[in-house]
């Protein structure tokens, strides 16, 4: 009984001391908007599109689980439409593109207050 109580008191003190000890360690916080986290190279952020490399095989459309990507082929002109309402950033379109025309950038701040902004068309050519 007495030994139990002593043991409990000892463990309580040890617990408090462990928490107290942590107050001397530096903070691990990343203060986000001021201080950006380090983004690794393989990060899957917003897509990039190289219209010259694209051959219009539409593999990306076939491998996308959420049907978030669409390729429009009009002669030589290829455009791609990403729907970020649906996209789950799985990277399938990037991984299985035979010509590496689709890439994924490190851009991750994609929040917007307009729904229309979430549909992004890439690869428009001005010359008609």
């Amino acid at each position, binding site marked *: 009984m007495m030994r139990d109580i002593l043991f409990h008191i000892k463990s*309580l003190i040890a*617990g408090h001391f462990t928490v*107290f000890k*942590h107050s001397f360690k*530096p*903070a691990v916080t990343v203060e986000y908007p001021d201080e950006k986290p380090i983004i690794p190279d393989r990060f899957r952020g917003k897509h990039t599109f190289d219209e010259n490399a694209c051959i219009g095989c539409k593999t990306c459309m076939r491998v996308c689980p959420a049907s978030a990507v669409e390729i429009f082929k009009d002669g030589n002109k290829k455009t791609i439409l990403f729907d970020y309402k649906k996209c789950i950033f799985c990277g399938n379109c990037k991984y299985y593109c035979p010509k590496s025309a689709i890439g994924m950038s490190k851009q991750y701040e994609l929040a917007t207050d307009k729904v229309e902004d979430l549909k992004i068309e890439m690869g428009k050519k001005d010359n008609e």
Partner: protein
Amino acid sequence: MNYLYFLYIQFLDKYGIPEIFGDITFPIFPFCIIAAAIILVVLFLVLFERRILAVFTQRKGPNRVGFNGVLQTTADAIKLLCKQNINPVGVDRFLFNAAPILVFVPIMVLWGLIPYSSEFVFMNFSTSAILYTAIAALPVIGLILAGYASNNKYSLMGGIRAAAQIISYELPIMFVLLSVAALASSVNLKDIISAQISSVWFIVPCFAGFIIMFICSIAEMNRCPFDLPEAESELVAGYNVEYSGMRFALFFLGEYASLFVMCAFMATIFLGGYLPIGNKYISELIFGSNFQFLQLLIYFEQVIWLLVKTFILVYLVMLVRATLPRLNSQGLMLLSWKFLFPLSIVNFALIMVIKYLMVV
């Protein structure tokens, strides 16, 4: 306080207003002082707690609003004040509105009982220590009413838990207070402090009592690990689950005001209250004993000593909060009735023996 009263009567006398009017209206002054002090202290305490908890967990805490985050809690308070007061369907309107006030007012009275310096006591009753414990138990009525009036089962359970808790933890406090009163031969808080000038601080003879008092005070202010009435992970928010806006702010204010006042009370009866370490005032050492405003300076210094002691205790309370998980109701009862209550009686008996030896 007497000086303030004297000034006020003199001021009224100048305009020919009778003294009786002054007697009746004078309490407005301490009321205003306490209200302002509570808001200031609570704003600081909340910030202090958030920063301290952040330090314990290797975070930074609020550091955006104002210089290094000092205005964070002020901004939070303004936000709470601007929020809509929601009256949920089916609440008992009168009790629902009265409950936060019933929680807050007794705590405000408690603030008036603490001697902040040897001349700065708002209410100096001859039995102020006893009165303190009596009033400290009152906020629970507000909690029960809040739980009952909210028309919410979680709130009701929170309120009932609060009642059960306060009953179990009131008794050990009384016994500890009795032993302190026996040591000081008085139940007046100022006398208890003056008794500590001549002898040691009462924490030395009555260390077990201090531990009991510390645990019971945490239980009385419903803080972790005794936060069963508002247990977030079980009862969502317990008795204040339906409250919003200003009424919620009152609960919040009451919680932190009671945290401060409980710690101040413990500092008063165990750590010598406003007494400095070694009974030597720093201002006396600096300015010499012939300095003109020495007495005034000493009053201020006494307040600072009390604040320092209080905040050391507040820090300890926060360390406990950061470390311990919440008790369950069986553990709560067991701790109180099987451990603290017998220990407080033993402590009381021990103190009586010490007192007897001291007198002889």
